[in-house]
């Protein structure tokens, strides 16, 4: 794969250092040559063509670009792609299996947790990080976990309901 920012600026000069990174994305090993200044969000969207991860504000405010990095929610517009070398990244494309939606996705569908849908991937991954750590959160805990994700349709009420729906479904599925 070519380096993205070289495409943006076609004459980078001969000495632009490029790094080869190996990142496990949604369980698959992906190898890419990246310029150090390439942001993880841009590698995911343009390099790996996983466009479910959205970039909203580009200033670490909105959380639309949230992905899981070694299981923890991070803003992928605020990390360099080179920093992900050797790490695991989960994007929204990693939630569903070929045949089934993830319970969090089902919850958003069932409880009308999205309107325009722009913030949804980030919301769902922030929700996944919460439910992985705390399978039975209170409404307040859900609101706390999503407080770094903005929804400009202001559909927060249903987003919170969706996550609580998913939590219940996941608990009913777990063998305990």
């Amino acid at each position, binding site marked *: 794969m070519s380096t993205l*920012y070289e495409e943006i600026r076609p004459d980078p000069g001969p000495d*632009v250092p490029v790094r080869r990174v190996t990142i496990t994305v949604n369980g698959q090993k992906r190898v890419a040559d990246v310029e*150090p*200044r390439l942001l993880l969000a841009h590698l995911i969207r343009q390099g790996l063509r996983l466009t479910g991860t959205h970039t909203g504000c580009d200033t670490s405010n909105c959380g639309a670009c949230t992905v899981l990095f070694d299981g923890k929610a991070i803003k992928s517009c605020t990390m360099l792609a080179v*920093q992900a070398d050797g790490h695991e990244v989960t994007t929204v494309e990693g939630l569903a299996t070929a045949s089934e939606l993830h319970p969090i996705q089902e919850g958003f569908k069932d409880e009308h947790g999205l309107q325009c849908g722009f913030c949804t991937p980030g919301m769902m991954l922030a929700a996944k990080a919460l439910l992985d750590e705390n399978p039975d959160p209170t409404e307040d805990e859900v609101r706390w976990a999503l407080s770094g994700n903005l929804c400009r349709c202001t559909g927060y009420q249903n987003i919170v309901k969706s996550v609580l729906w998913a939590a219940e479904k996941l608990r009913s599925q777990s063998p305990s």
Partner: protein
Amino acid sequence: MYPSRFRYEAPSSLDDAIDLLHRGGGEAKVLAGGQSLVPLLKLRFAAPESLVDINNIPGLGFLREEADGSLRVGALCRHAELERSPILRARQPTMAAAAPLIADPIVRNRGTLVGSLCHADPQGDWASVVTALGGWVVAAGPGGRRPIAVADFVSGPFQNVLAYDEIAVEAVIPAPKGKAAGGYLKLERRVGDFATAGVAVAIETSADLVVRAGIALTGVGGSTIDATEAGRALVGSALSRDTIAAAADLAAQAARPRTDHRGSAEYKRQVVRTFVERILTRITESAERAA
């Protein structure tokens, strides 16, 4: 948005990192959590020639209480770990109050306390907290290590006193001389916004008398404000309505707020007064409940 071009190094030892900074001759910048630096790079407010990423250096992520009761926070200890720390909840009330108020939960997974001190944003919460607690930063450079009191470490807005080839490797909170109490309050328009105003209060009491007090202010001046007079007004007596009111007034006087879209200068000064009063009153109320 994307940053201007830089060289990137991710050394696996502190010595290598210091060496890279040294050879960078002032044009290299340390990357830790990156939650302030990466946005600055994207906005091109910062355009260093090279970045020295310290995330691959083992042994910098610690959060440790020493036998003497002091607390050490390593350069890669993330806000999220501080937020979840039982040590903070049990024995560091000012830090425990501040940790959940830093930025937002996702930023807290990456950002670091030491990085926040180095960034020296006048709106940064940790600088106020560590100033109120009388803490210091340990800087490591080619010539060895040296401690720098946080009150001296921040030299202005977005400025610290580190030499170009030094790395802040940890922050240290000294052991309390008495029973520690305190709090942190921040007014923000929404989670993750810059503070309209923030107040850190840390006191230590012995037989009900205040033996040490630190009060520091966030977002109401060109840099973190150490309201030393306000703290001094509490030392030597038990907390009372009078001493609390005196400290709150002195803290409000120490504030240097500016009128902006978050509120008028007078409003922010009043928020400082109210927050100092509120934190100290809560301390007396919980002491009464415990008695």
